[in-house]
């Protein structure tokens, strides 16, 4: 095997159809970076989901003296009603813990959360903020509905709110964005495959003299095909390099920037990024290599 000879042939091939090579590198770069962005998105959504899964609770709001709704027509919840609810909740198998938040605590929390809107705080009295039980569930997704149904019927319960239902819309948005990115990436990968095939075909046509002589003097098929295969792979490699740069940028500028809008820290780790970059590398080489190989079988018969 004469590595230097093969490399110089590859270099000649890449330079001869430079425009096709550039187009190929660009398309591979964009499709791989979109695919990678999609994967980063998946990871981000998963991370947020696990973060919330461990924190999502069922909020059981209790009747206050100022709750003018049908469920609270008997006025403020009595102590015995409150105790019954707490005990029954604690006995449910799906429940991990039950925490009581008094009106006093809820008021303070309200004050700090709406510190930006002093008017709202001024016109709200502590007695308007209901006390509640914060119920932590073993499996937030599956257990929320049955538990809230049970507790809804108790006297003194104003309203049961499943926190995860609030998050559902947020997830829908993220999932939709992720799917859109992945679908575009798939379309571009198809374009990349066609471009690889076309580049190799052009290259085979450009080098038909060389290949016909190689076959005539008895070069092995591997030797005849290697320059073309390497051409496709090297173009794929360059595309991947560009894509890696874009992915690092997406992660450090955009996804990390997104964190500023959330009160919790779920930052993707560097190992997540490395994993995605490696997946992009394998995808790129696989697509470029196998397409080159299959194209060659059509255009370089013995």
């Amino acid at each position, binding site marked *: *095997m*004469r590595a230097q*000879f093969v490399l110089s042939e590859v270099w000649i091939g890449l330079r001869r159809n430079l425009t096709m090579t550039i187009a190929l590198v660009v398309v591979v770069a964009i499709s791989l970076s979109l695919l990678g962005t999609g994967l980063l998105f998946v990871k981000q959504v998963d991370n947020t989901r696990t973060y919330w899964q461990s924190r999502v609770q069922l909020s059981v709001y209790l009747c206050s003296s100022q709750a003018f709704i049908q469920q609270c027509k008997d006025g403020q919840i009595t102590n015995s009603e409150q105790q019954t609810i707490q005990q029954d909740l604690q006995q449910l198998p799906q429940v991990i813990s039950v925490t009581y938040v008094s009106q006093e605590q809820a008021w303070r929390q309200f004050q700090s959360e709406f510190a930006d809107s002093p008017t709202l705080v001024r016109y709200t009295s502590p007695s308007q903020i209901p006390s509640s039980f914060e119920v932590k569930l073993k499996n937030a997704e599956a257990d929320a509905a049955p538990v809230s149904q049970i507790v809804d019927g108790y006297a003194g319960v104003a309203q049961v709110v499943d926190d995860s239902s609030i998050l559902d819309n947020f997830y829908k948005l993220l999932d939709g964005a992720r799917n859109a990115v992945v679908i575009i990436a798939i379309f571009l990968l198809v374009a990349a495959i066609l471009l690889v095939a076309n580049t190799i075909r052009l290259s085979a046509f450009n080098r038909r*003299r*060389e290949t*016909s*002589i*190689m*076959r*005539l*003097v*008895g*070069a*092995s*098929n591997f*030797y*005849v095909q290697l320059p073309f295969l390497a051409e496709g792979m090297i173009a794929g490699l360059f595309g991947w390099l560009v894509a890696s740069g874009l992915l690092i940028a997406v992660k450090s500028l955009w996804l990390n920037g997104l964190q500023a809008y959330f009160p919790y820290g779920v930052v993707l780790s560097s190992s997540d990024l490395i994993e995605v970059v490696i997946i992009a590398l394998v995808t790129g080489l696989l697509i470029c290599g196998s397409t080159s190989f299959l194209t060659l079988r059509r255009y370089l018969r*013995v």
Partner: protein
Amino acid sequence: MIHFDNVTKTYPNQGRPALENVNLDVEKGEFVFLVGPSGSGKSTFLRLVLKEERPSEGRIHVAGRDLARLTNWKVPQLRRRIGCVFQDFRLLPNKNVYQNIAFALEVIGKPRRFIRKVVPEVIDLVGLEGKRDRMPDELSGGEQQRVAMARAFVNRPMILLADEPTGNIDPATSIGIMKVLDRINRTGTTVVMATHDAAIVDSMRKRVIELEYGKVVRDQSRGVYGQAY
């Protein structure tokens, strides 16, 4: 060296076979002219020897191998033992004389030290001393054909196939080409040359096989081009 046993070759969508029931033997070290009008089957014969085509019927042995049993991935091994020269030279225009010849060795993975040693030797053999750095377009037709012969011979093949090597060259220069082919033949290489050139065939007095409509109509040792005898 080359053995055809009742070989018929019919191309798809063509009524008449290109070769029909051809039986012939070419021994090691022989020099054979293959003559006949265009379309008589000379090129088909050469393509069959190289296994670029497969016979429709019959068996072919080349260099002791049964071509029907030769798997596709072993075809390159066969072709390393056969050198080829064509009417249109088929040199690489962007490589000089030395590089064109070395290319044939590089693509079969020969070590560089070997290439450095043997390429100058064949350049001398074909009479191109001092022209190793010329590009093909700086050479005359006869010189280009010498490069092509050097490339065909550099790997010391057992058989040299020449398809009208003097077809694009004037008669005076052709004599030089034939001398090189003769020199190659004297090293023990079997030479099969397809040609239209009556003067050359008559002057060489070698074995002549004449094809017509795909059939061998004459096989004569020390023959001439026309059917004089």
